[in-house]
């Protein structure tokens, strides 16, 4: 079992010794039972760190944010950053390292093994509680999640498999392979779903039905861009499909601005949103590490993870490629093998 005190001590130690400028972790949120991200800079604050099944966020996002801030700063603070990372989160760090976003020594990975469980899916939990809100969610043994309900403080223990996020049910690396330290046991056998279970299920539907489903989802998209904003891999300074982010520097000419391509319009209609989501999915092929954040944050519950895991599955089945597993490996998109069947450079 993960002892949260050990995490706190470790984080406090890092900060005390000045080995990191900050530690990214989870603390109790003010709004509900769900934990929220925090950035600790003082050893004394480490006591606020928590570890429970509501530690959903992939904090690697904040490594990206820090890197962007330091790049923009006149006096960058380049000391390493500590990050509390689940198995999936550590793979995100791995991809960022593969893509040279920072160096290994810039980050101290405080790995946490999800052991036999994982984190809850707020939507599944909400369905379970018939729309009511949970006020407390904790681990209960190896395969249980204990939940208290808002307005009715009795505790219920729910089998983990019923409320765990799909990605956790399909997880193959519950313990972070990339780490400076790991808390919790590395549990090999996890008797939940096979990898890519949800994606395979979705494939079993006829093409027409699949199209109808996605048309329905793209039509509902609000284009709030939370899926992109929360994704640690979506660190591009300018998103190719969207006009809400773009790079204008003093050197950007009027011509460049005038010629800026609008691959998709601002209108949140089916076709424009399809372009947005499909382009994003393609750009994440071989990069997505299935932290499921895009799907989790979607306010209208578009099952975005399916798009990404589908491509992750293809990458795995066709090229045995797993993003973020080997930081020395060339990215999927940029590597080719001599025995690849199609002529590559013609």
């Amino acid at each position: 079992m993960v002892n949260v005190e050990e995490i706190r001590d470790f984080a406090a130690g890092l900060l005390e010794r000045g080995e990191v400028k900050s530690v990214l972790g989870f603390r109790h949120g003010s709004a509900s039972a769900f934990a929220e991200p925090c950035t600790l800079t003082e050893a004394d604050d480490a006591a606020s760190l928590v570890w429970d099944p509501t530690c959903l966020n992939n904090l690697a996002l904040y490594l990206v944010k820090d890197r962007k801030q330091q790049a923009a700063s006149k006096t960058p603070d380049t000391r390493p950053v500590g990050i509390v990372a689940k198995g999936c989160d550590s793979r995100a760090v791995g991809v960022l390292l593969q893509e040279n976003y920072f160096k290994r020594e810039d980050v101290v990975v405080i790995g946490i093994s999800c052991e036999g469980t994982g984190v809850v899916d707020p939507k599944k939990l909400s369905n379970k509680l018939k729309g009511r809100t949970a006020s407390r969610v904790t681990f209960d043994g190896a395969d249980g999640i204990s939940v208290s309900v808002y307005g009715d403080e009795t505790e219920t223990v729910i089998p983990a498999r019923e409320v765990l996020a799909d990605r956790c049910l399909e997880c193959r690396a519950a313990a972070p392979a990339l780490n400076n330290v790991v808390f919790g046991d590395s549990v090999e056998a996890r008797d939940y779903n096979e990898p890519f279970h949800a994606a395979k299920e979705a494939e079993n539907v006829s093409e027409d039905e699949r199209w109808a489903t996605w048309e329905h989802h793209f039509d509902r998209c609000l284009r709030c861009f939370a899926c992109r904003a929360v994704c640690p891999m979506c660190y591009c300074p300018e998103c190719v499909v969207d006009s809400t982010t773009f790079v204008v520097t003093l050197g950007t000419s009027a011509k460049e601005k005038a010629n800026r391509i609008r691959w998709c319009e601002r209108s949140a209609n089916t076709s424009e949103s399809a372009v947005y989501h499909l382009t994003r999915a393609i750009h994440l092929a071989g990069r997505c590490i299935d932290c499921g954040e895009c799907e989790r944050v979607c306010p209208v519950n578009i099952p975005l993870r399916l798009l990404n895991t589908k491509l992750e599955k293809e990458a795995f089945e066709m090229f045995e490629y797993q993003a973020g597993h080997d930081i020395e490996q060339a990215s999927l998109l940029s590597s080719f093998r001599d025995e690849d069947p199609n002529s590559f450079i013609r």
Partner: protein
Amino acid sequence: MTDNIYLPKIGRIVGIDEETQGARAIKTFKVEFPNSDGFEHNCGQCAMLSMFGKGESMISIASSPLVKEYKQFSIMKMGRVTSAFHAARVGDFIGIRGPYGNQFPLDDWKGRDLVFIGGGVGLAPIWPVIQTAVARREDFGKITVFYGARTSSNIMYEADFEKLKASVEVQLSVDAPEEGWPGYTGFVPANLMDKAPSPDNAIAITCGPPIMIKFVIQNLQALGFADEQIYTTIENKMKCGIGKCGRCNVGKDYVCVKGPVYSWAELKSLPQEY
């Protein structure tokens, strides 16, 4: 039914003057309303100009309200819409909504001295005030126009300046030494200090690059101008022009409606978020 405030009127470009060259060139466009559905405007007001297919941009109206036949706009090539304007030819059609925003309280300034301080394309928003003041020359005391450009070839409205000299004091400057340049060499705020206009019963109106405005205001204060005697216009990104789209606010004010003209006294009371 109410007027559709988002539906532009159709304007026609009847004249294009190339004011300055370069990457951020400035052109002045004279625009007529072929459907005789034009509008009246006041000094300092803006209009939302459209290039259909490219979008809209808020541009200050650079002609005097006394000129009824056309409206004049001086546009720097900056982005998508302005580039489209720069590619336009005489006879092309554009869209216009407006006029928007408040105005310079010219009527309140009767009998006072006027000091205009402009730099670069920042001359355009105060140009209608200068033109109107000159047209009503007897209403005002001494009128001085300070204007600075990077080089003499970057001076806007060059021909008009010649006419202006007949009735007002014109102080032109260029940033760097140039052979044969008869005027001041150096930055506008320095020229202002050099000539030191009197603050007594005077109003100073300035517009230009933000850094220039900052030093002009410092220097005006040093010359003894009170905050209420200093006027400027500000800009922010605008989409609707009518105080709804939510982006151009400085504090509680939407610049498109409450601005763009502010006295320094008013502007100081707003958050520094522009």
